[in-house]
């Protein structure tokens, strides 16, 4: 177990962390605007993985087309959920806890809809990129390499949109104070639409990448919950925080798993509790004040 072993684990960790990052920015984006934890996001990721599976097997699409289809499918689903489930609550100014319950309902609905209409058995993706290359003794699967590159590219584009475009400015304004920014002429509905669309598209990408490396099954919730933990770890509502938290969580999880594989899930939840006790606002989250 030389340095090569640790480097290999580090690469695996970054790979997992990149996938968590694609998922956790969805949680963080929604939280930054609407102040609730969107647990239906896990269902959106799962549906993305299934879209990818059918695009690759039944339709026989090339990988790139399947990849884009996943983004489109999940993005549409996220918008539909926002319109049908959250919009009526938003119009009524319901407290955030009702949003969480609705999100849980939507997540139960999606999970069991897939179980009922397809079935509950885990499925394997066809091997798209089976080869692996080796760089200096490190064996790197093409799929893991692709995972890292795609996550990095998607997250960079997202950061560009948030930081440099007009709609990004509106999103940042709304996350600071939604009421005040809508009074200044920001279209709140459009901001929420964009946030759900972007979170959904990234969820679809995460879904196909996850399915390619592991398996697809309706109860993918164990993984998506961990990406939620990553979002909390980095600071809910902060995008750089979500990305940093995901990478750190992915790397730490892989190292814990290489030491004792049964403890990896327990480690993630123990970390969640520790973060909430020591610093609830996470690594880079904004400190929320108690507004009366």
């Amino acid at each position: 177990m030389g340095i090569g072993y640790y480097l290999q684990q580090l690469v695996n960790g970054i790979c997992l962390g990149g996938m968590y990052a694609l998922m956790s920015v969805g949680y963080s984006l929604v939280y930054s605007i609407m102040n609730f934890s969107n647990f239906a996001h896990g269902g959106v990721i799962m549906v993305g993985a299934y879209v990818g599976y059918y695009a690759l097997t039944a339709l026989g699409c090339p990988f790139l087309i399947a990849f884009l289809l996943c983004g489109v499918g999940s993005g549409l689903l996220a918008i539909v959920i926002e319109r049908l489930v959250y919009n009526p609550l938003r119009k009524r100014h319901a407290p955030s806890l009702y949003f969480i319950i609705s999100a849980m309902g939507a997540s139960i609905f999606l999970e069991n809809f897939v179980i009922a209409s397809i079935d509950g058995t885990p499925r394997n993706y066809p091997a798209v990129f089976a080869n692996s290359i080796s760089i200096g003794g490190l064996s790197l699967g093409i799929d893991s390499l692709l995972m890292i590159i795609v996550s990095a590219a998607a997250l960079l584009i997202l950061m560009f949109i948030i930081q440099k475009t007009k709609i990004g400015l509106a999103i940042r304004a709304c996350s600071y104070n939604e009421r005040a920014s809508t009074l200044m002429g920001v279209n709140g509905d459009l901001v929420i639409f964009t946030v759900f669309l972007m979170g959904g598209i990234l969820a679809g990408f995460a879904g196909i990448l996850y399915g390619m490396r592991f398996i697809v099954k309706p109860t993918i919730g164990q993984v998506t919950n961990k990406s939620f933990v990553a979002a909390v770890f980095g600071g809910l509502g902060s995008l750089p925080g979500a990305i940093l938290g995901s990478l750190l969580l992915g790397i730490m999880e892989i190292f814990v798993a290489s030491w004792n594989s049964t403890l990896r899930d327990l480690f993630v939840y123990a970390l969640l509790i520790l973060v909430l006790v020591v610093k609830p606002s996470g690594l880079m989250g904004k400190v929320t004040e108690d507004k009366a």
Partner: protein
Amino acid sequence: MSWYYIEGILIQSCYTLLIVLGLSILTGYTGMFSFGHAGFVCIGGYVSVICTMAFDLPYAVGLLAGGLVSMILGAGLGRITLRLKGDYFCIATLGVGEAIRLIFNNLQLNWSINGKNFMLDGAKGIASVPLKTTFGISLVIVVIFVIATSFLVNSKHGRCMLAIRENELAAQMSGINTFSYKMLAMCMSALYAGIAGGMLAHYFGYLQPKMFMMTKSTEYTIMVIFGGMGSITGSVVGTVLLCALPELLRAVGDWRLVFYGLAVIVIMIVRPMGLMGGKELRIGYYVNRLTRKLLKKSDPLPGGDEEEEAQ
């Protein structure tokens, strides 16, 4: 439908009702959401089974021990998480609930006490737990706890909890020690969940960590919301309906949980206050009206009216 089948559903409704009652104190009356109550049920179940199987203690002692250990854990959790605001409390309970399940998933015990072997084998759990939860016993326990809970929520303490739910800052300004009341609600709900866990274990006859997934915690919270926050009878009606609903929908097979999820979304949109909408179903009131109707008293006594108002 045999009686055996119906009895099973009734026993399940009973212990689920116990959990939902506890959660009703926490969520419906104090306004804190928990997504980790399955963890408390898990602790209660394991502790009570260890008591009855490994130490040969009576069933009642096992239930109490399960409840107490769960309550101590609830108090510890409350101590560190109750100062968290809003969503963070519910995220913390989610983490604790999952962590408890995962600990039992990794726990290996193999004791031999007085020549008897006791095995607790991680994800396989505990097998051949004595079946001691009968319908009679569960009904008695649940009735006792329904009465105790209604006394609690109608006391001064219950009013303080309601004040915290409505506006925590205002409650604090009025001199209510919000931390200790939140702690009380947390301990009570953990106690209820622990006792219910013992009943569950001795009804199913086995225990596995995967019986306490996060979706279970969500289901309990949904039952509280469905019945109506801040209403004991609402919790009772909601629990019995939602326990029976999947059984009635067995004909549609896998689709029942789809309808279940859909129902939750529709309720949140159409009737967010739940079935009872924070009101209690008072049997006394209806009995009064019925007897009056039967006796054909066209104009009720003034005294009777006042009594109704007071209720």
